[in-house]
């Protein structure tokens, strides 16, 4: 029932509109660089469109470097499971204490 309802971003048109909006904003911000007089305290800030370029390049570098280091750092989801300790007994105990708490009518954290 719910899934049949059309939501705002189900329409590709709306996503395009949002993106166009972003592009226009970016262009406007670039133009504002000429209009607004800025009092700068660092000589790099005087460069034309320093902040936009720095922001864009910074993020691209960030993502590329991050995907590169992922090659070394990524492991399976259960990489640390069973860290030399046999948790099976512990799990049983934890389970028991949980049922004990439930039994007292205290209820357990509904979290997670």
């Amino acid at each position: 029932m719910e899934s049949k309802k059309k939501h705002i971003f189900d329409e590709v048109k709306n996503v395009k509109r949002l993106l166009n909006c972003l592009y226009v904003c970016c262009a406007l911000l670039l133009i504002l660089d000429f209009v607004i007089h800025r009092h700068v305290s660092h000589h790099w800030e005087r460069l034309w469109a320093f902040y936009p370029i720095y922001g864009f390049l910074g993020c691209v570098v960030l993502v590329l470097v991050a995907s590169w280091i992922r090659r070394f750092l990524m492991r399976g989801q259960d990489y640390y499971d069973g860290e030399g300790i046999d948790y099976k007994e512990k799990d049983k105990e934890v389970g028991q204490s949980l049922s004990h708490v439930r039994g007292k009518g205290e209820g357990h954290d509904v979290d997670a």
Partner: protein
Amino acid sequence: MWMLEIPPFVPFFISALIALATRGLLRAVIMTIIPVISMLQLWMVPEGIHLQFTFLSFELILYRVDKLSLMFGYIFHIAAFIAIIYSLHVRDTSQQVAAMMYAGSGLGAVFAGDLITLFVFWELLAFTSVFLILARRTRRAYAAAMRYLIIQVLSGVLLLIGAVFYLADNATLEFAYLGLDGIAGWLIFIAFGIKCAFPLAHNWLTDAYPEATVTGTVFLSAFTTKVAVYALARGYPGTELLVYIGAVMTCFPIFFAVIENDLRRVLAYSLINQLGFMVVGIGIGTALAINGAVSHAFNDVIFKGLLFMSMGAVLHKTGRINASDLGGLYKSMPKTTVLCMVGAASISAFPLFNGFVSKSMVMSAALENGYDWIWLILLFASAGVFHHAGIKIPYFAFFAHDSGIRTSDPSNNMIMAMLIAAGLCIAIGIYPAALYSLLPYDTGYNPYDATHVLAQTQLLFFSALAFVWLNLRGMYPPERPSTNLDFDWVYRRLFPTMLRSIFATIWKLDKRFRQRAINKIESHFVFMSKKYSQLTELLLRGYPLGSMVLWLVVVLSCYLFLSVIY
């Protein structure tokens, strides 16, 4: 008025005791009212030392109020109030009592006027908060809680040893400026550093916070690290080393955050990034920089709390928190989506949100004091934090591809808590003068000049553009169920493996050595038994009993003979 002399941790500890004995609505009402009453009381307290006594010839200051501690006192009350409302639906005594004790310990620590009192609350913070992780009641949470506890207690022990050295050097225990000269200064610095998640000592945070309960993480994010920031601001303002440590802290977590799949762990990494800004501010140490650090700590408690609450709501309703499992939740959790985006805008320091009014202070201070490279790093980190906390969190949880999960917004108390936090984010962003009036120094700083606003907006919009471009080009790293190695690999994998192989070698050597010793002894025995058997053969030779009797008779008769002679 005697009421004013009660330190704020007392009402919290008392309410923890009451929470232990009450149930249901009564407990909820008491837990909600206590922070409000305590806050009103704190509001009226004048500056100065209000409670001190002598214990074993040590001058202990239990309650010292000045502008710096007041600022943290206020935010801890606000954080406790919001987090308590967020957790009103929880029916778990241990968690609720621990949360109250934890909030109280945080308040005790910031109003502590001497190092011993600080140490006591420092350790109480660890012992009370660990229950918020254990309360998740999973195997992973249990292991993470134990690691958390070990590291936190280690920090406390270092603080205690440092305090002893400090007492020996200075004949006082007062917690004022400490500085890095002498072993005491360094020990206490490391103790603070561990709690402040300095690089290489940061893994307790990214390990434990994502494993805590939904409501527990909201509490955790507010107190421990901010107490450490307070302690650094009190003990080490203007220590240049902090500028560099802080700069590293702002930068390295964002790389991990970009590739991390667990969204609460992403927030934990971005918490370290935000702490970096505060640490840089403390390191610069001018009035503007300290103001920036303190107000950023204040704001961070609110927006990070809001983000943890919104991700908690997602975990609570869907049972999932990995970006690879989520997406499209804006359809069924619209309120949470909007509130999360307010938090995301605040942490990214958009103008008119609270992050902007405090982060720009630290950046301005870095520029003014000639830390050009640090300023560039902070600028990069600002773009980076927008990238992961500002865009990635809301995008992968609420938008991106539709995961097909259909749920609903969380219960009213959770929404209410998020609303209060979001309201504060916007209110402080629009009217920063209210926050600035509470700050330790009066610097007359105005964040809303055209230069700042334009520069920050340009930075953020073009970061967003970079995200869009990378996504459309398919260059953005896809979200996969994974574990990313971090420094904790050293003590979770490398050390155990090394120790195991070292011990295996030791056991092997030991076994060989013992085997050789046993062989030696055995050969001796064989030799001896051979000798012995030759002797017996000589003596017994086929008449064992008879020859023994014979010898006995010989000995006895000799004895008799001798006794007759004498």
